[in-house]
């Protein structure tokens, strides 16, 4: 455990997770989340009244409805009244809030979930509204263009090469080979189709439990041994877009380098982000074990980050890995970053 957290922190683990992603989903957010929430509760044999805390992440503009998370609580069954919170962030930040709640010593179990359904609206418009409302949002730059502005800086400065982007696209499965990559249309110069995410509707739910309880609920709990999140300025012009100090610091504070990492689950929606995140966190460009899934192939705003944490936990439960890194990002071009280390407890 990292020095900042050593000794003082309660041990908390992920003991169950369920997720679903589809390009277009007919179900409402409630209809989508009920089976996932039921699945994780059933896995551990706890009903809602036995869970100490419920925390979710979602976006109102994505849902097209104010306070949309309140309706989604129908999927939880908040009767009798529950202890509940919500973040207008990716569920990874709801996960962090829940971890803090465990550290307060007031809960032993919790459910965390998040979801996004971009298919009914314009995700590009929703993402534009998160930008500086005076100077940038009125120009409505789309997310791919903003990523492309960063990509050109990375290429011009030699931080990445187009061959590296091609190899990353192959590794993450958006193309099969370099020839296919270089024949892909450029959709936001210099980014090609294979560099950019495909969006999906989806959701993820998970159960957390503290030491003493977690072992009862799961054969091999995925223990959170380090977690931290940091933020860079939202002013594009002030940031050096070829670097991500926030993720570097978050990785350091989460203790990523205190031991070997078996699997990295990166919330990288663009090839440029995958390469930049690896560089900033000092991770090998070509990992030994692939991720459980890749956001670039199915990115679900508000859920992709929590899904990374769920996939990381799955690699622990499956016994494939003993120490894994999960990363989540929010905001334009990797502005906010959360890094979490999970361990299976092998010596």
């Amino acid at each position, binding site marked *: 455990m990292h020095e900042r957290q050593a000794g003082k922190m309660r041990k908390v683990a992920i003991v169950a997770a369920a997720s679903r992603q589809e390009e277009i989903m*007919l*179900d*409402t957010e*409630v*209809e989508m989340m*009920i*089976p996932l*929430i*039921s699945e994780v509760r059933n896995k551990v044999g706890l009903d*809602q009244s036995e869970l100490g805390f419920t925390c979710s992440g979602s976006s109102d*503009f994505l849902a*097209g409805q104010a306070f949309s998370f309140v309706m989604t*609580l*129908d*999927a*939880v*069954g*908040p*009767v009798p009244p529950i202890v509940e919170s919500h973040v207008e962030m990716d569920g990874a930040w709801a996960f962090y809030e829940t971890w803090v709640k465990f550290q307060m010593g007031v809960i032993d179990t919790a459910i965390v979930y998040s979801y996004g359904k971009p*298919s*009914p*609206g*314009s995700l590009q*418009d*929703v993402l534009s*509204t998160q930008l500086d*409302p*005076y100077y940038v*949002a*009125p120009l409505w730059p789309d997310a791919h263009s903003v990523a492309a502005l960063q990509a050109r800086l990375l290429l011009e400065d030699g931080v990445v090469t187009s061959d590296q982007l091609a190899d990353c696209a192959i590794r993450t499965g958006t193309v099969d080979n370099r020839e296919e990559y270089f024949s892909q249309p450029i959709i936001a110069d210099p980014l090609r189709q294979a560099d950019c995410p495909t969006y999906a509707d989806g959701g993820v739910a998970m159960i957390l439990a503290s030491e003493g309880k977690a072992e009862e609920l799961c054969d091999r709990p995925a223990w959170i041994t380090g977690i931290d999140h940091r933020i860079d300025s939202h002013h594009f012009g002030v940031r050096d877009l070829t670097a991500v100090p926030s993720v570097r610091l978050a990785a350091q504070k989460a203790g990523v380098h205190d031991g070997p990492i078996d699997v990295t689950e990166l919330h990288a929606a663009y090839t440029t982000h995958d390469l930049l995140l690896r560089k900033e966190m000092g991770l090998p460009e070509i990992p030994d074990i692939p991720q459980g899934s890749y956001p670039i192939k199915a990115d679900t705003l508000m859920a992709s980050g929590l899904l990374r944490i769920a996939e990381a936990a799955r690699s622990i439960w499956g016994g494939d890995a003993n120490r894994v890194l999960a990363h989540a990002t929010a905001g334009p071009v990797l502005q906010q970053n959360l890094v979490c280390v999970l361990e299976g407890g092998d010596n």
Partner: protein
Amino acid sequence: MTEIRLPSSLDGIEPVQSVRTPIRMEYTFTPGVAAQTYLRAFGNKKILGNVSPVDGAILVPPRGADPRHGVLCEEFVEMSHTGHVGSYCVTNVPIPGRDLDLPYISAWIFLDGADIGFLNLVAECPPEKCRIGMRVEAVWKPDEEIGMTAENILYWRPTGEPDIPFEAAGVRGWHARKAGGENA
């Protein structure tokens, strides 16, 4: 407040104090699985409710879930077109964007057999005559105007039948039935 030093080129110039930044977002909204089923039936002048798999409670309109328990509701039941007023409100101020004669009555309509109500208009009834427990029936649009939309029912009007007792009206009825069930 901190004094901001400006270049002399702005001396004596009226400062900008606000900026218009309107946003507009378009969605193609799709109802979920339960709402699709409901709307298709509604387009044939049928009102469907959901049956809770937990305790058989009938929820109208159906949302595909029993929100008390967080479980899917996949069973539908056809409802009658009559019910009663569970509670109501008389409004004397106009709503922007809606052309309603003032005053108008909004009410929680509880269909016969339903455990929860929904908000709708009551008309053909002077406001001073409206009351909790009053029996009402649906007044549909002309058949040629019926579609898969929540606007099919124009309003609800009194049937003239005897009232539901106050104690059994609206959610009081549901709570009373639950209490009875638990005691039984």
